[in-house]
């Protein structure tokens, strides 16, 4: 008997992650490690980690990682990429990090068209701190700070940050994908590979928004949370390529 699946080279083996059962982070971590191996970038990759659940991703990634202050991932990535253009730099940020406290950094780095890749994990809540309302929380969604559901009159509407930055001329590639099925996971891998290739080709900024399940804070089983992503979350955050200027730039 021959082993069919090989362990990703840049993912640490036999480490139990701190993520809850059914969390989308584990899947996206594995995809990132696989894509880096396929594009042969692991030796010169630097990941900028967020504050949030993925704060401990450096325990699982087997390549260089910088820990950023809350929301400042793209600012740090800008500095690294400008001082060492030979390195491959990407950020891995959650919705509380990228679209709340880090809105200014995200918007301005996108507007400058920095040659970095951004992986944006959107699970509609602040996961690490216990499921409070995030800017991306859906209308009528119950969280610990909106126990009666998000009321748009009081709390505002879900923030579509990927659509916001996709309008900028500096943003070369923006796509929204979902961890909701085996098909969705394959599409996520393709999108992340496209974003990484954009940076390798020197075209500019790319952002991949991944709708990711958070079973613990949504108070659902892992299987139900996958269904919730595909049935409810994608109605508010439609999937697909939001901008693709690669041919124009290349």
């Amino acid at each position, binding site marked *: *008997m*021959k*082993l*069919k*699946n090989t*362990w*990703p080279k840049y*993912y640490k083996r*036999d480490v*139990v*992650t701190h*993520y*809850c*059962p*059914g*969390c*989308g*982070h*584990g*899947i996206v971590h*594995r995809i990132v490690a696989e894509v880096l191996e396929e594009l042969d970038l692991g030796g010169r990759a630097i990941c900028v980690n967020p504050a949030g659940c993925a704060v401990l991703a450096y325990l699982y990634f087997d390549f260089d990682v910088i820990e950023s202050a809350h929301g400042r991932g793209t600012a740090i990535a800008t500095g690294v990429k400008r001082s060492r253009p030979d390195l491959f730099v990407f950020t891995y940020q959650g919705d509380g990090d990228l679209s709340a406290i880090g809105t200014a950094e995200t918007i301005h780095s996108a507007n400058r068209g920095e040659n970095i890749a951004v992986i944006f994990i959107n699970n509609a809540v602040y996961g690490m701190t216990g499921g409070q309302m995030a800017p991306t929380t859906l209308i009528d969604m119950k969280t610990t700070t909106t126990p009666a559901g998000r009321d748009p009159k009081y709390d505002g509407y879900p923030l579509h940050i990927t659509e916001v930055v996709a309008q900028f001329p500096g943003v070369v590639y923006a796509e929204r994908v979902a961890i909701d*099925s*085996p098909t969705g*996971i*394959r599409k996520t891998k393709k999108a992340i590979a496209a974003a990484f290739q954009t940076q390798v080709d020197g075209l500019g900024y790319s952002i991949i928004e991944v709708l990711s399940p958070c*079973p613990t804070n949504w108070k659902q*089983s*892992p*299987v139900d949370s*996958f269904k919730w992503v595909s049935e409810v979350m994608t109605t508010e955050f439609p999937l697909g390529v939001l901008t693709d200027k690669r041919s124009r730039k290349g």
Partner: protein
Amino acid sequence: MTKTAAKHKVVVREELCKGCGLCIEFCARNVLKESEHLNKSGYHYAEPADMDQCTGCMTCTLVCPEVVIEVYDE
């Protein structure tokens, strides 16, 4: 007619499994099931139920968030 041996083998590294059940849900041939026993972390891990049905499609390894499933081929 004698029963032929399974062409594919799924191995779940049960001590690392968190029992999320995604591999069980997305397996089209119901090869895996939830275990009766608990592992060291206190989860009902996934275990093979009917290995003869396995086609080696690797969907279980694709959806596993913990990378605990290994698929072997003949």
